[in-house]
């Protein structure tokens, strides 16, 4: 229960942190999405209900804060979450190489889905951003993901302990 109570507050703080402080580190040239790495982590470690709700809440807050239409990030995050979920049932998701590789694939897939949504809905071609934005974004996320996964592990343990306590 504590998990579901803490979820909106934690998600909102994480998204604000991501869109303010982290953006400053990257000078606004490239969005570094901790929230997306968290969704990948949730897909590999959390059950379907907990992770699914986390993906929806994170997506909704990101939609509100970035100004995109509601449902844009919700859809992308839910798809990435279930992609991770499907993979987690078939592999051992703990090795550093796997985490890096899989995060890279997920973040890059997010870029491709963004391009497709923009192309089919707005008739805007964002494909020129693949090498300039989405590929560096996926590389940075994959390099940093092994450092973030243990933090998410600890958070999960903390919330579980509070729930059972």
């Amino acid at each position, binding site marked *: 229960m504590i998990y579901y109570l803490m979820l909106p507050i934690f998600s909102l703080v994480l998204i604000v942190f991501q869109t303010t402080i982290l953006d400053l580190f990257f000078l606004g040239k490239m969005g570094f999405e901790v929230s997306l790495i968290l969704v990948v982590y949730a897909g590999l470690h959390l059950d379907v209900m907990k992770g699914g709700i986390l993906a929806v809440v994170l997506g909704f807050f990101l939609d509100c804060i970035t100004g995109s239409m509601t449902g844009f990030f919700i859809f992308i995050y839910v798809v990435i979450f279930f992609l991770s979920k499907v993979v987690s049932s078939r592999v051992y998701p703990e090795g550093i190489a796997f985490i890096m590789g899989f995060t890279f694939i997920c973040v890059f897939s997010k870029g491709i889905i963004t391009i497709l949504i*923009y192309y089919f809905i707005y008739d805007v071609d964002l494909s020129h951003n693949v090498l300039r934005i989405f590929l560096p974004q996926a590389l940075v996320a994959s390099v940093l993901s092994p450092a973030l996964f243990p933090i998410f592990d600890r958070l999960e343990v903390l919330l579980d302990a509070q729930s059972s306590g």
Partner: protein
Amino acid sequence: MLFPKKYQPIIIAFIFIIISVVILSLNLRQSGETYLPRKLVLEAVTPLESIVSSSIEYLSNIWGRYIFLVGLEEENRKLRKKNASLQKEVNYYQEMYLEGMRLKKLLALKGNVDYPSVAGRVIGINRSSVFKTILINIGTTDGVRLGSPVLIDEGVIGRVIETSWNVSRVLLLTDYNSNVDALIQGSRAQGVLQGQGSKGCILKYVHRSEEVQAGDKIISSGLAGVFPKGALLGTVTKVEKKKFGLFQKIEVSQAVDFSKLEEVIVALPDEDDKK
């Protein structure tokens, strides 16, 4: 249980995906007022963003002004401290002076425009690579409406795409979703100015027979009824005519440097329009 336990995760996953697709498609059809959950999130985030921004500014000030002084001789430290405090005072007065100048410009702009307007302060800039928006500290209680044009003395910034009671989101000219009916000032050729993210804007649908040169000014045509006619949008930076095709490719640099925005003017709808 309705379904066997083995299939429950798949069914839940299916339901989540269906929900997200439904939300996305519903929002594609609606382009009206900002609804309550988004307004609440916007209102909740604004103080949080303000706290983070002011903390960052405070820390960078401390780092810049004091940390590097540790380890110097006592007298030197005192003098530097005094100097720092004087500098802070000077900075404060300079800031006030500059703010006064900006407000004076805004007031002059307000006086020049023949429609009601309200001034606001920029409280957040979305620096992400795809979405180009800013948050301003005025909302529906100040009279701001969806689609209201936002400008400063140098030119057009964009239009309001989301409003809450005390906050509004402005879609910048450089956002990929921004399309503005435009004119080339000299030749009066018409086109549509579309955002291109960090690359600026392009002017689309200008016939290849039109004479366009780098340096030509692009102004709003006033046709769509959103932007006032003649407001400066940008300057042509590059013109490319391919061997084939009806139109030429025109790259445009926006008139306003969006990274330095502090105060803006929002044009309000006329009383007649409201009715």
